């Protein structure tokens, strides 16, 4: 069974938002809701500034608070390590939204269920990459199987120093960030 993960090369992110719109279209995300977002964090004072570009999405945590808090089992782990939502089981209590340290969930206003990034599960089944990865103009998003030592993500994580977001919360996230800042001089 694969164990899916995403590596985000922050130095390659040019903040173009292609991922954000691709995700919205692919998954019919309702107006004003998002499954992924892009942060631009600028530090320093003129003229010595640095920028971190960081795209964020569901971390598909190994130790996912949303899964343990869910009273009905709607939020659950799949065998491929991803965290998914069984919409039929969701009562819309919003505990998962509150419990997520990454603030990546929202309520589908029309149907009332909680929703979030699914790593484009339906595309994975067709052998495609998630929509955001497929269209990432900067090539910043890299997707693959951690259990396959030859996958691109495994290779990168062996070779390059990486971090996860809010590690201190202890959720065991599966989105890995590399090259926080672009190389300089």
């Amino acid at each position: 069974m694969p164990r899916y993960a995403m590596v985000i090369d922050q130095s390659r992110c040019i903040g173009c938002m292609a991922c954000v719109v691709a995700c919205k279209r692919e998954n019919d995300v309702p107006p004003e809701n998002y499954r992924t977002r892009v942060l631009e964090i600028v530090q320093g004072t003129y003229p010595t500034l640095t920028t971190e570009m960081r795209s964020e999405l569901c971390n598909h945590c190994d130790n996912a608070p949303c899964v343990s808090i869910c009273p009905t089992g709607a939020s659950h782990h799949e065998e491929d390590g991803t965290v998914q939502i069984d919409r039929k089981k969701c009562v819309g209590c919003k505990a998962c939204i509150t419990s997520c340290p990454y603030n990546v969930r929202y309520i589908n206003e029309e149907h009332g269920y909680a929703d979030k990034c699914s790593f484009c599960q339906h595309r994975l089944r067709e052998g495609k990459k998630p929509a955001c990865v497929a269209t990432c103009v900067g090539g910043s998003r890299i997707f693959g199987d951690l259990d396959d030592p030859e996958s691109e993500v495994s290779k990168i994580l062996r070779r390059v120093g990486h971090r996860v977001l809010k590690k201190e919360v202890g959720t065991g996230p599966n989105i890995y960030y590399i090259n926080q800042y672009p190389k300089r001089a």
Partner: protein
Amino acid sequence: MELSITGTNAITYPVMHVWDWRVAIYLFLGGLSGGLMTMSAINYLRPGRKGPMQSVCCWQIPVMAPILLSIGLFFLWLDLERKLHGYLFYMTFKPLSPMSWGAWIVLVIYPLMILYALAALPDEVKARIKNGFVKNVADAVAPHLSKLAKLNVVFGVLLSIYTGILLSTFVARPLWNSAILPLLFLASGMSTGAAVMIIIAKNKEVKLFFTKLDIWLIFFELLVLALMFYGHYTADAAHRAAIMPFFNSSHDTFPYFLSIITIGILLPLAIVLKFLEVTGKHTEEVSGFGLFLMNTSAIFVLIGGAIIRFALVYAGQLSGYGYNMM
């Protein structure tokens, strides 16, 4: 630092507002009904109590407890995004989910509350019941009042404490994520329960007893509150940041600042009033002024308890790790 985020969900950014007043009301009423269960049962069970032994205090209290809980749950239900899917809570049991526990505990607590209320009904009230089945049940459980009362002490505590357990399990919300939070809600629930006892009870001795008891409960509540802030203050950056809204009078956080000020005035004032009451000279009946003091302090306690729930529900959603802290 300049942060810009493109593509955020309004319910989580810039400020999380997933749960609102409906949840706060539930937490308050849930705690209060737990308090009523425990307090009325304690009154019945305590040794050396004067007055008619078949009465737990006044019969309205045990009846109020399930009604208040139902109102609370009604508000919680109102908060559900898929109200018709509520039954799904009972299609499964998730041992790791405090919400699942909560749903099932309610199923245990309701019968206990209702049987206790029926058992405690005085004869003249029972006589007015038209429904034969209810009357029969009430008659059947009446001899078991003592056992039911003991169970109500325990489950009242559980119910009160549960309302805090749910929030305390949210690792993502540092303000809530403390094992002391259930204790705070327990103290507050019991204290508000006692306050209602004071207001409703007619018997002077009962009123005085709960006034005395409430002094200790409020002391305990304030102590736990202080400990919670102190614990957060000495914990990691996220926890420390989480309590800052309460100590910052700027525009954005003024409601939280105000809530702490209000609690800091109301609850100690209630203690003082109660202290004056229990140390004062008493005639056979409570004087009008005495009654006024007692009820005022009890109302202070209720307001304080509600403020604690509202302030914590909202402020907890401001807290978080990473850029939530900023």
